[in-house]
């Protein structure tokens, strides 16, 4: 062989960047053994490019399918304000209500905390049927069956891990009360989106990351996320966060500071 493997790979890389030398090409073509090695290397690069395009298209396809399957936004509760007339009886009842109210505030202060908020507002994530799955997905099946350990196993086995798989693995960790692991998974989704400029599973990751912080009794970390979601009317979980009582949040925050 007229060139060693290392020289060939250097030439491959230069050719890939458009700086290949004609002299090297000639040397390669003059020696059948080197030409064969060269051919293998070119095939390897083709294979890598194909895999990269496949991953790119799979990610976008998953996002496109997710957008298609997003249910129509829930309609706002149409009930109007209830107008109550104040009667004398009511005034008399006010004193009683004041006492009950005061007791309720004291009770509320004693029971409200991050974990309580988590229990009150964290609803399980429902996985929609993925009509366009390329292959039956072991991880998604396990998730639908609420088999959290199998979701985690499926995640580990997955060759291509996209945001959806990180998110579902995070949800499985959250359900299994492995809050630190869940936090890592959701943060991975958000970091990947930040790098790629995508928003695939971004809203879900933000909300459930906030829930994971609450479950971990760490409201300081949850608050910036909850504030962000509350400020963004287009956020998928805006309505849920708006319903969270600010009093509860402030009490939990105050207790966390103490």
């Amino acid at each position: 062989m007229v060139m060693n493997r290392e020289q060939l790979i250097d030439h491959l890389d230069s050719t890939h960047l458009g700086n290949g030398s004609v002299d090297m090409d000639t040397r390669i073509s003059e020696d059948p053994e080197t030409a064969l090695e060269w051919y293998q290397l070119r095939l390897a690069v083709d294979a890598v490019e194909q895999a990269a395009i496949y991953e790119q298209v799979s990610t976008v396809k998953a996002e496109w399918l997710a957008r298609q399957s997003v249910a129509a936004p829930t309609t706002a509760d149409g009930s109007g304000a209830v107008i109550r007339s104040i009667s004398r009886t009511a005034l008399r009842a006010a004193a009683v209500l004041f006492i009950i109210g005061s007791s309720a505030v004291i009770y509320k202060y004693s029971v409200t905390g991050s974990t309580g908020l988590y229990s009150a507002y964290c609803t399980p994530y429902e996985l929609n049927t993925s009509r366009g799955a390329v292959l039956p997905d072991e991880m998604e099946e396990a998730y639908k069956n609420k088999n959290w350990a199998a979701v985690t196993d499926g995640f580990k086995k997955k060759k291509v891990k996209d945001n959806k798989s990180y998110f579902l693995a995070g949800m499985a960790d959250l359900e299994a009360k492995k809050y630190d692991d869940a936090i890592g998974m959701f943060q991975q989704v958000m970091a990947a989106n930040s790098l790629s400029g995508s928003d695939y599973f971004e809203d879900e990751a933000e909300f459930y990351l906030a829930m994971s912080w609450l479950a971990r009794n760490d409201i300081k970390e949850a608050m910036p996320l909850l504030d962000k979601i509350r400020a963004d009317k287009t956020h998928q979980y805006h309505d849920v966060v708006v319903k969270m009582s600010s009093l509860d949040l402030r009490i939990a925050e105050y207790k966390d500071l103490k």
Partner: protein
Amino acid sequence: MKVEGKFSDIELIAAISGKKDPNEAILFIYQEFSRTTSSFMINYGASEQDAEDVFQETVIAFIDIVQKGKFRMQSSIKTFLVSIARNIWRNEVKRRQRSDYREKQFESGRDQTEEDISELISEWEKKKQLRDLVYELGEPCRKLLMLFYYENLSMKEILTYLPYENEQVVRNKKYKCLQQLTEIMKQHPLIAGQLNELTK
């Protein structure tokens, strides 16, 4: 990733061949062309799932063809995509050895553009078979090779994505990963056959 506006054919080609964040362009392709292409395939006997899978492969082939500078814009992107899908589906039908009937239906609708695309697709399908072999590499190797050979990142830039100490470590690792991949490929019957042909 939000598709704010429409892409003209020229803008779409520029976005894909430039490789700089082509995700919006790919999403646009899905939004604009998947329905037409899928309906076409369903007319030729594909199930909904088949149509979806074939469309995904169509997009992958299209990107590969564009990035290799082989799309000459002699037809609109829509026509080109439908032709690619038609070729991929025809080959899939052949593989599944379904009835001659659908095959004949395909043959009757072929024109010169189809003949040209047919060559591109058979070339691409050979490469597609190599794709799975990349997944026999571990994730770090796969990522490293993709960042270098697809994203065209320098060793220095790769350091910001992968936890290696310095550029030399990245270079050595890339060398080993590429060696590993060529070894995997040599074991594959298709590649082994091709290599035997070349040595004859």
